[in-house]
Structure formats: structure tokens, C-alpha cells
């Protein structure tokens, strides 16, 4: 089963969701049948994939809205004069264990475990209340009946089952479910905490990089993730472009890393921007657990966990921006945090860029493509046309020049189905789903 995307044509399948707020996170569940999005307004929208249906052959693979709920509300911490945004920073699904689905959603300060369950039956024929719910007069009841279950229109309910609060002084940037399916980590700028999914009043601090004197602060934690198979291993990335791998078996407080990943830098090429553009905005293990990928401002790098000295692959996302760093610093775009993701077989990787462009790299063929997520430039069920940015000299037809790029149209969040070539791309407040053309 060749999942190299180069042999397929990605088409815009359907389902463009328009939200009132900017989408801030996108995540498929373990089977890929559910897709969750979180937005700046604290809302979560879950999509479910349609099953194959003979009467509607074209609907197979469509994602339709399954559930919508308000996960977080804005808060104001009066003691610290701090406004706590309701924006959902991350959603992570739990592996499915029964009919219900569980996910963790987090804003800057509080993580919540949500249970999403279906109800398609209703009990009727109660003794003490009638069908409207009004209580019956007990003296009028002359006979007993057994309530029976009757089918009803499917109702999907979301309820908060656990609230994990008050464990983070700084802003949470990551959550990651452990492969033991019992614990998870939450990371903020300076600390990483370990939780048990059943216990909300206790959390163990496993990484703390806060210096005694805040004047000496030189780097912050930007992302963290558990290894997909080894429940004792986690990685965290920093604003200085380094990744530390920690083994929880070695000590309770993992301040000393087991591995330290950093690419050596040529000191003569160092500039004012070097550290800022080296800051890692996302780190993701491959499905195999053998590799990890880091995203910095201009590139994605693939690292072999057995080699700390340098990445095994470096893919340029938008190298043409190197000559625009001055204005990107002035408009703050240089601080944009792009995410990255692996395809199901780890042979391809994807990340976003500006102008609603996103980039896909085939690691086997070493080929890459730039695609666009926009309504104007794609028709439903038509193949996506590769885009090209003109970096100088004569601009060919259909190319776009660097100066014409819209830096407000950022694709920061993308997700890839765990097994199939189906991708979800968030472009500001639009969600696009693309999949391989089925011939």
C-alpha cells in the first residue's frame, strides 16, 4: 500500500467549516473516524466520517459535524491581574475503550477531560412521571408498568468528566497522552507536569527549567510529547532550537536529559534573527517511534533518536522568507508557531506556511509540493493544483511573488489521518479536508 502522496491527486473533498473564531487546533482520533477542532472562542467541534453507504456512494469519507460544545470560558484571575483566554491550545484524543469517546482539551491554564457519548434510546412508560416529565399524583397510580426503551433521534452529548486546574503558573503549550493510557503530560513555558487521568487534585512536576533568578532566563519550553510506545520517554523542545529527551525511570525530576538534540551552527552566519528563527514551534514523534520531527521558522527537520548531533533530514518550508526577516520581525510574523505532522506510514510529512499555502514532503522520493487551501482557487472534487512562489527574476504565469504573499493567511495547524491519505488543514477560520482521489 503505497501511501506516497506523489502518486495520488489530492482533491478538495468537501466540508469547509466556517467558524466565528480562528481555529487554534486540529486533531484526528486514533482511528481517524473523528476529527476535532478547537477555536479561539473556546469551542470544540467534532466531525465524524461517514461510513460507506450504497444509497449515497459519493458520501463515503465525508466528515460531518458530530458534536459541538463550549469547552472553556474566558476567566480573569483577579489576584494576578491576569486575563485567561478561552482559546483552545491543544486537543488530544484518548484511545477508545468503550462506546464513548474521550478527549483532553486545554487552554492556557486548565485541562479538561471530555466524554462524548451517543444516546439513541429513551425510556418511556415511567410510573412516577408522565411523558412530559411532570410528576404524576402517586395516589392516582393504580397499576405498575415496566418502562421500555424506545429508539430516538441520535443525540450526541459532551460532558466534562475531569477538570485539571491550578497546576500551571505559565501558559500551557502542549498536552500529550502516554502510551500507558493512564497518564498524560502538560507543558507550559517553564515546567512539565505529569497527571493521572483519574486524579485531578494532584500532579507531579517532572521538568522545571525556571531559573532561581528570572533575570537569567534564556530559554522556554515550546512543545512536549510522550514517545508513542515507550511510556517512560518524553521529549521537549526549546526556544533556542534544541530538543531534550527525558527518561522518567532515571529520576523523579527529569531536569537532566538523557539525550540532547542540537544542530551545530556556523558561528559566522549568526545574526540578530538566528535564535528567533531557530525556536522550535512543534515537535512530533514518528508513528514508528524511531524518528522525531521539529519545526522551526523556516524548516522542518527529521531526527533519528539515535543521533543527537544533527538531523537526518532538513526540508525547507519557505526559504525565500530569509530575505524578508526584517519586516517579518516588525509585523511579529517571525514569532508565528507552525505545527507539523507525519503521514500514517511516516513516509511523508506536512506543515503550513503563509498565503494559505501548505507544504508536503515525500521523504522517499525527496520531492515536495506546495498546495493552497482556499475557496477561490479550488473547486470541490477537483484536484489541487501545485503552487509556486517566485523568488526572483521573471515571474512565470501562475507563480506568485514573495511580496504578494498574504502574511495574514497563515496555516499554523494541520492534521493527517493516522492510516489514510486524508488531511485536515485549518486556514484561519476555515477548515478544509482533502483526500486522495478515489478512481
Amino acid at each position, binding site marked *: 500500500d503505497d501511501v506516497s502522496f506523489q502518486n495520488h491527486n489530492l482533491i478538495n473533498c468537501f466540508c469547509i467549516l466556517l467558524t466565528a473564531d480562528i481555529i487554534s487546533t486540529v486533531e484526528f482520533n486514533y482511528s481517524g473516524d473523528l476529527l476535532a477542532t478547537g477555536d479561539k472562542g473556546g469551542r470544540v467541534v467534532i466531525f465524524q466520517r461517514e461510513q460507506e453507504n450504497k444509497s449515497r456512494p459519493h458520501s463515503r469519507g465525508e466528515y460531518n459535524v458530530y458534536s459541538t460544545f463550549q469547552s472553556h470560558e474566558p476567566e480573569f484571575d483577579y489576584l494576578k491581574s491576569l486575563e485567561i483566554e478561552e482559546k483552545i491550545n491543544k486537543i488530544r484524543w484518548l484511545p477508545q475503550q468503550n462506546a464513548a469517546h474521550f478527549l483532553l482539551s486545554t487552554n492556557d491554564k486548565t485541562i479538561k477531560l471530555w466524554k462524548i457519548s451517543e444516546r439513541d434510546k429513551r425510556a418511556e412508560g415511567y410510573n412516577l412521571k408522565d411523558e412530559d416529565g411532570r410528576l404524576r399524583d402517586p395516589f392516582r397510580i393504580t397499576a405498575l408498568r415496566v418502562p421500555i426503551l424506545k429508539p430516538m433521534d441520535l443525540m450526541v452529548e459532551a460532558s466534562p468528566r475531569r477538570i485539571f486546574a491550578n497546576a500551571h503558573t505559565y501558559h500551557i503549550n502542549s498536552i500529550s497522552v502516554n502510551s500507558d493510557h493512564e497518564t498524560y503530560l502538560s507543558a507550559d*513555558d517553564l515546567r512539565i507536569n505529569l497527571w493521572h487521568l483519574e486524579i485531578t487534585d494532584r500532579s507531579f512536576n517532572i521538568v522545571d527549567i525556571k531559573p532561581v533568578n528570572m533575570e537569567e532566563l534564556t530559554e522556554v519550553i515550546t512543545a512536549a510529547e510522550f514517545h508513542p510506545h515507550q511510556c517512560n520517554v518524553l521529549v521537549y523542545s526549546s526556544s533556542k532550537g534544541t530538543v531534550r529527551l527525558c527518561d522518567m525511570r532515571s529520576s523523579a525530576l527529569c531536569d537532566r536529559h538523557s539525550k540532547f538534540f542540537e544542530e551545530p551552527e556556523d558561528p559566522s552566519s549568526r545574526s540578530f534573527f538566528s535564535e*528567533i528563527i531557530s525556536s522550535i514551534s512543534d515537535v512530533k514523534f514518528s508513528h514508528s517511534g524511531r524518528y522525531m520531527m521539529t519545526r522551526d521558522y523556516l524548516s522542518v527537520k527529521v531526527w533519528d533518536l539515535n543521533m543527537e548531533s544533527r538531523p537526518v533530514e532538513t526540508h525547507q518550508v519557505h526559504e525565500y522568507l*530569509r530575505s524578508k526577516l526584517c519586516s517579518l520581525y516588525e509585523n511579529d510574523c517571525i514569532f508565528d508557531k507552525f505545527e507539523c505532522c507525519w503521514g500514517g506510514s511516516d513516509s511523508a510529512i506536512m506543515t503550513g506556511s503563509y498565503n494559505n499555502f501548505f507544504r508536503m514532503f515525500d521523504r522517499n522520493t525527496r520531492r515536495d509540493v506546495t498546495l493552497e487551501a482556499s475557496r477561490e482557487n479550488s473547486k470541490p472534487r477537483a484536484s489541487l493544483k501545485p503552487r509556486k512562489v517566485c523568488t526572483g527574476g521573471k515571474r512565470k504565469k501562475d507563480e506568485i511573488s514573495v511580496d504578494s504573499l498574504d502574511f495574514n493567511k497563515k496555516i499554523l495547524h494541520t492534521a493527517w489521518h493516522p492510516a489514510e491519505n486524508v488531511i485536515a488543514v485549518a486556514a484561519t477560520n476555515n477548515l478544509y479536508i482533502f483526500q486522495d482521489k478515489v478512481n
Partner: protein
Amino acid sequence: QEMEDKVTSPEKAEEAKLKARYPHLGQKPGGSDFLRKRLQKGQKYFDSGDYNMAKAKMKNKQLPTAAPDKTEVTGDHIPTPQDLPQRKPSLVASKLAG
């Protein structure tokens, strides 16, 4: 004879452009000033004492509502948390301050 290498990397050229615009730009862009601003995201300046005093004084009247121009937080206007303008850690200002 030595030929001076006049080719500058695009990154260094951008750095020169930035330094020309902001001559007092700090030497350590990734240093603690920048990081501390990041950690302070969401900071608003709300004086609960002033707010409660004003509420007590005007218990029969409505609190003056926020002016459409949200930067007005002094004088007769008593801010509520919702009124306070987001104190965006202005990197432009910090770029100018050494």
C-alpha cells in the same frame, strides 16, 4: 591581491536593515527581556481597590461605561476587567528601548 568578499547573506542584510531602523536595538533578542514579555502575556492592570471604591461611591448609579475608544482608562471612567485594553506586549516599543 585580496578581493573583498562583498556578498552578504540575506539574513545579515536583513539584520543591517533592522539595525538601521532601530539603532538602539538590544544585543540579545532572544534574551530575557523578550522571553519575560512572552511569559507575561495576558497581563492587565486592574486595580480592584479603585474598582470597589468607585462601585461603593456610586451604588445608586450605573458605572460609567467604557468609552468607545478603549484606551481611555483614566479620569471618570472606572475600568472593569472587560474594558481594559489588552496590554499587548508591544515588541515594537521594546525594540526601540535598548
